[in-house]
């Protein structure tokens, strides 16, 4: 058994193991459950990069949103239809909310995809949970986008 500089124990052939030992595969190893061919696009790397880039933008968009909605001018008490109408009269706040909606939903959906991949082990469960996730995400993004673009301050 070898130990590296930061104390990681490296498993070698001489390491005593038993049948129930928890073996961690090297991250890029091809196993029975991975497909044999390499994918042409680097989707997982792009998803990883998207989480970091969208995360930085969301820090500003979401914290700004929280300050406006929950902190300034009496906190949550001033929120009403009239307050929404006043804000969405400005293309700036429409664009802010639209960008926040898309980035937050895609960031959240990709995070939930990671959670499903980590905890749902049966292929059927993984598949149907992801179908449900994609359906909920597409529905929410489209509904929110439609609401921002078709908002009518003079409704009813």
């Amino acid at each position, binding site marked *: 058994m070898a130990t590296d500089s930061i104390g990681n124990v490296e498993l070698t052939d001489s390491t005593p193991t038993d049948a129930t030992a928890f073996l961690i595969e090297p991250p890029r190893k091809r196993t029975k459950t991975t497909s044999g061919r390499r994918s042409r696009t680097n989707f997982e790397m792009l998803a990883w990069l998207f989480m970091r880039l969208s995360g930085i933008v969301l820090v500003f968009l979401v914290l700004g949103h929280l300050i406006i909605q929950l902190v300034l001018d009496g906190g949550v*008490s001033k929120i009403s*239809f009239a307050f929404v109408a006043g804000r969405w009269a400005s293309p700036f706040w429409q664009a802010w909310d639209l960008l926040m909606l898309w980035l937050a939903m895609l960031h959240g959906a990709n995070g939930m995809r990671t959670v499903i991949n980590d905890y749902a082990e049966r292929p059927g469960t993984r598949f149907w949970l992801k179908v449900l996730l994609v359906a909920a995400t597409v529905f929410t993004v489209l509904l929110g986008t439609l609401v921002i673009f078709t908002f009518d301050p003079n409704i009813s």
Partner: protein
Amino acid sequence: MPAGTLYRGREGMWSWVAHRVTGVLIFFFLFAHVLDTALVRVSPQAYNSVIATYKTPLVNLMEYGLTAAILFHALNGLRVIAVDFWAKGPKYQRQMLWTVVTVWVLLMAGAFYPVLQETLQWLFS
């Protein structure tokens, strides 16, 4: 279930657990929040009546909890980015976590009155 779900413990693992739990909570809130906001396309009365529930003490307290989850996820997310992209990030990940926790405590203290003022005024009037 996997054979073991405890990784190495300590700051690294528990911050990862907290990041995951807060992320899932925020995602479910976001889903509900887009639906309640969509009521502005139904009628001002429908929107105002659902927003009235946001002003009740129990839901107001949950907003403070949501603020806690979002602030932790935002600050720890910046730490994750620093660990991934800053050469000394992994070396200082523990110090950065305690910085995150300190800033989080200060921001939560600052948000206490503004976010909960509806409930505090109801309690003390």
